[in-house]
């Protein structure tokens, strides 16, 4: 499978070569190879984190750290050549059987963009060039059987997960579902308290009141939970910390040093108290307070459509880069966008990690949540 892309805004350094997978860039689908970018362990951290969430944490194993999960990387071959349609990450499951999770070429878009940046730096690609990319595997490296993949960081101390033990089923019974119908398999559970959801929307849309509108937002704060009955893992967002003293423009929101300092101070204060010790930053929310397509009017057949699908609710490349940087090795990461459609109606969507990238997903709203009494 070959995917088109365009050059992103930033550069990146080359990583250590992986003998197994590479991303190949071409200017035309059947054109000559423009670049071959090795896929290193660091490029696969988001995918490995997702495997950990789905196969360990969601099966009640919250005691095994990400670093401790043995992972094998195996290409999904497209035929007899080097081309791959994706790859599998495999690890031993709770019952001793090997579990696997498939990832598509889209999960390696950041590798393709890195290669494109390098080609642009060498003058081999222009800013508006469209390029195509696909995964290639190195047959000489034993692509058929796969190989161990190590993303552990022995020097780094990670805060213990310590999820709250809370039954999931009673929460689901009293919660209101929002967003896309459940995907198959369903993503890990995300709940908002009604107050936290309102706070997220309020701070995300605050920038719409500016003249001209700007982007505003904050971080989502919540508890990670593990169900003692089903073993499933979920998050409950209970608070939003607004990004104060941030640099805001029509199409960007940059947290300043003061923004981060305040957020960290509040979080440390929360974590000093027993009742809120488990709180952590689980995501971000912000407003795309602009009309999509540069404010173009709705489609000619707008009146015949029930729902306007032209929306400013999407995960931009900057949003993805921000989440990858801030929530590294945190697969519960969330990105909630509040925006507008072409009819100027309010729209919103929650995005979470799936296929190694941020895809839209549903969530549930609770009227209240008591971490000690539920």
């Amino acid at each position, binding site marked *: 499978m070959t995917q088109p892309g365009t050059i992103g805004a*930033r550069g990146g350094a080359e990583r250590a070569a992986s003998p197994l997978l590479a991303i190949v860039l071409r200017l035309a689908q059947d054109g000559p190879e423009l670049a071959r970018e090795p896929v290193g362990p*660091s490029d696969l951290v988001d995918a490995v984190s997702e495997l950990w969430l789905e196969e360990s944490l969601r099966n009640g194993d919250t005691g095994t750290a990400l670093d401790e999960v043995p992972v094998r990387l195996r290409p999904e071959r497209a035929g007899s050549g080097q081309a791959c349609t994706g790859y599998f990450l495999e690890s031993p499951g709770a019952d001793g059987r090997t579990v696997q999770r498939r990832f598509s070429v889209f999960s390696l878009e950041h590798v393709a963009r890195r290669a494109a940046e390098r080609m642009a730096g060498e003058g081999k690609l222009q800013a508006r060039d469209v390029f195509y990319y696909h995964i290639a595997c190195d047959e000489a490296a034993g692509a058929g059987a796969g190989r161990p993949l190590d993303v552990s960081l022995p020097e780094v101390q990670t805060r213990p997960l310590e999820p709250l033990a809370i039954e999931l089923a009673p929460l689901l019974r009293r919660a209101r579902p929002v967003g896309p119908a459940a995907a198959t398999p369903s993503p890990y559970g995300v709940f908002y308290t009604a107050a936290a959801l309102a706070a997220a929307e309020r701070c995300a849309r605050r920038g719409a009141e500016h003249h001209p509108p700007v982007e505003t937002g904050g971080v989502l704060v919540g508890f990670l939970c593990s169900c003692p009955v089903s073993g499933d893992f979920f998050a409950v967002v209970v608070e939003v910390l607004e990004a104060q003293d941030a640099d805001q423009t029509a199409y960007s*929101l940059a947290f300043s040093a003061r923004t*981060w300092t305040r957020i960290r101070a509040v979080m*440390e204060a929360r974590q000093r108290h027993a009742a809120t010790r488990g709180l952590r930053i689980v995501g971000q929310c912000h407003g795309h307070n602009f009309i999509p397509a540069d404010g173009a009017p709705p489609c000619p057949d707008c009146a015949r459509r029930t729902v306007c699908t032209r929306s400013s609710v999407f995960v931009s490349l900057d949003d993805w880069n*921000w989440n990858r940087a801030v929530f590294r090795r945190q697969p519960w990461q969330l990105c909630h966008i509040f925006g507008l459609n072409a009819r100027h109606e309010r729209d919103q969507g929650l995005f979470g990690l799936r296929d190694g990238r941020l895809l839209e997903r549903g969530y549930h709203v609770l009227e209240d949540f008591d971490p000690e009494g539920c």
Partner: protein
Amino acid sequence: MTALDTTAAGPGAQDAFRFIATDVTGTNELEVGDLQSSLPASAVARTVADRMSLPDNVPWALRDESTSVYLDDDVAIGDQIVPDARVAITPRTHLG
């Protein structure tokens, strides 16, 4: 200069000092004790980001947790923080 060039070795090693780096969410923490205090903060930030396996497609800065300000990229880290200081490795990127 690459990230790996910043490790103190040989005669420079006695110039190394210790500090603690955390990510912005406070989830991951790295103790650093082998970098020269004369290195510019930008080089130290790149090394810390590399050791914490943070993405290399965004620029990184160090924020002094005691003063809340970003360290000056071009100034030696030893001139900006004291030994055993805590810094946050912070992405200099934005939501869009």
